[in-house]
């Protein structure tokens, strides 16, 4: 299905990407899909799947895919990004793509840290979570992408899944693609494993993601 993974062992992103590819195969839409990649760990997906992919800049994948979609509205435009790319440096473009209801599907891998740079505070870092840049614990609540986007777009398809709820994650991605086909903006945030920066392994990773669900409940919004 794919080339060798460039992600860390245990990273959740391969599960998200493989699920997306499985859906495209089932829908016989591999050729119609174009996957734009933000910079961050998401850039490592550049040759992971046998579909069209290209890297963009940090925080700029949504704007790039809005442009792509306006040139080729008949193709499926995916913007694949981390939480920092989506909700911090790229928030302005994400909000406006949503507000205009641009028919693109944004997939946000939420691991609560800036992972590529080694675990700094992200917009999704949770209250009291310790990171390299919040050594005594983060003192505020994280950004809730679902509420934020809903506040500017009533028609958008919005869902939050998790890599340990694979069946639901697949359903959310399928519904997001359908929303895009129907001409609407779609965003699926997925709570994803980051064993390297969380400094946890195996069973603890599942516990960590389950704990994240207190701050980030899964479901459709």
């Amino acid at each position: 299905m794919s080339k060798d993974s460039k992600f860390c062992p245990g990273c959740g992103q391969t599960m998200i990407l493989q699920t997306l590819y499985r859906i495209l195969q089932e829908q016989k839409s591999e050729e119609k899909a174009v996957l734009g990649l933000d910079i961050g760990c998401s850039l490592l997906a550049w040759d992971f799947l046998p579909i069209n992919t290209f890297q963009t800049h940090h925080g700029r994948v949504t704007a790039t895919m809005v442009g792509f979609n306006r040139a080729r509205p008949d193709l499926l435009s995916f913007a694949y990004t981390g939480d920092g790319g989506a909700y911090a440096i790229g928030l302005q473009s994400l909000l406006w793509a949503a507000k205009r209801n641009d028919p693109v599907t944004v997939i946000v891998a939420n691991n609560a840290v800036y992972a590529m740079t080694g675990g700094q505070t992200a917009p999704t870092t949770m209250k009291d979570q310790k990171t390299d840049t919040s050594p005594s614990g983060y003192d505020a609540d994280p950004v809730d992408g679902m509420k934020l986007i809903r506040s500017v777009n009533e028609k958008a398809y919005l869902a939050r899944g998790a890599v340990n709820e694979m069946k639901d994650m697949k359903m959310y991605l399928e519904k997001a693609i359908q929303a895009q086909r129907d001409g609407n903006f779609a965003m699926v945030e997925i709570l994803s494993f980051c064993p390297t920066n969380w400094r946890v392994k195996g069973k603890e990773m599942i516990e960590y993601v389950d704990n994240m669900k207190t701050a980030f409940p899964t479901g459709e919004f």
Partner: protein
Amino acid sequence: MEKVNKQFLTGHEVVVQACVDAEATHMFGYPITPGTEILSGWIKKCQEDKKLHFLQTEDEIAAGFTVCGALMAGSKAFTATAGPGTVLMQDAMGMADGMRLPFVTIIAQRGGPSSGTVIYSQQEVNLAIHGGNGEGLRLVFSPSTVEELYRLTRKAFNDAWTYRFPTVVLTDGYLLKTKQDVTLDFAGENVEPKPLVSEHTQKNIRNIYTFEQELMDELENQKKDFDEMAKTVTEFESYKVESCEELIIAHGIVGAAARDAVDELQAQGKSVGLFRPITLSPFPKDELNKLVKGVNKIMIVESSMGQLRDLVKQSLEVENKIKIEGLYKPAVGIEVEEIVELFK
């Protein structure tokens, strides 16, 4: 509708007409003085022709990246910006640098630094060429008249899609707001756009490299292509330079004033000619070096503190040790009389 060659138009209007005639289909832009009328003028065209599209984006960063996305998909897309917008545009232009995207932007220079002044300057030369975090392999045109603004804007699309380097039409608010009789040359073929990715491709395109050597090899190839392109695209005007002893070097709208100054100076019996680079990048280096062999003094005239002078100095060969003087008026227009006065 039959096109009339001779018309009474502003610089903004000829830019929009040139984009339409180049068969551009998408403009992404953010309003900023003195380039806003390119966006609003294009939107008017969109209302007349449903094949044309526009998006007023949330900022210049998004304008640049939506252009990049549309180019990837194979649309002739472009943007226009100015001053602080040109600074923000560098993010997307950097992606175009790295991925060889046929990114066309019209830059309406205004005074800087910061928000500066809003109509005129020649201070975005460095930004247009070297604003990215790389080597500045960009094609930059500097038109001096409204007619040339039309010709070079149209050519910008053809050259961008032929050679795949980001291409800038570097102009200013004075030229854009000038309204005059113009004779437009509609002749010439348009280069067809081609998508980088489509349902007929399966490409994985990157702009970030794992190994330093990979990036250096890529840049060396880009430089080779750029130097090859230079042989074809480099443009300049030499005006009344036959056996001249002194040489004015100016670009853009200042070049037009310098041309009139040369007429007046020669009428006074002075031996002064004009060299006007039309492409600031690649710079017409060989022609300049040939020309200065018999010249005693170069007089640089520009509305910046020396951005053109630095391009000239970089281009002069060592053996051409020549006296360089200049009139440097950052963000201020330069009149014919001031240039004539320099040779008293």
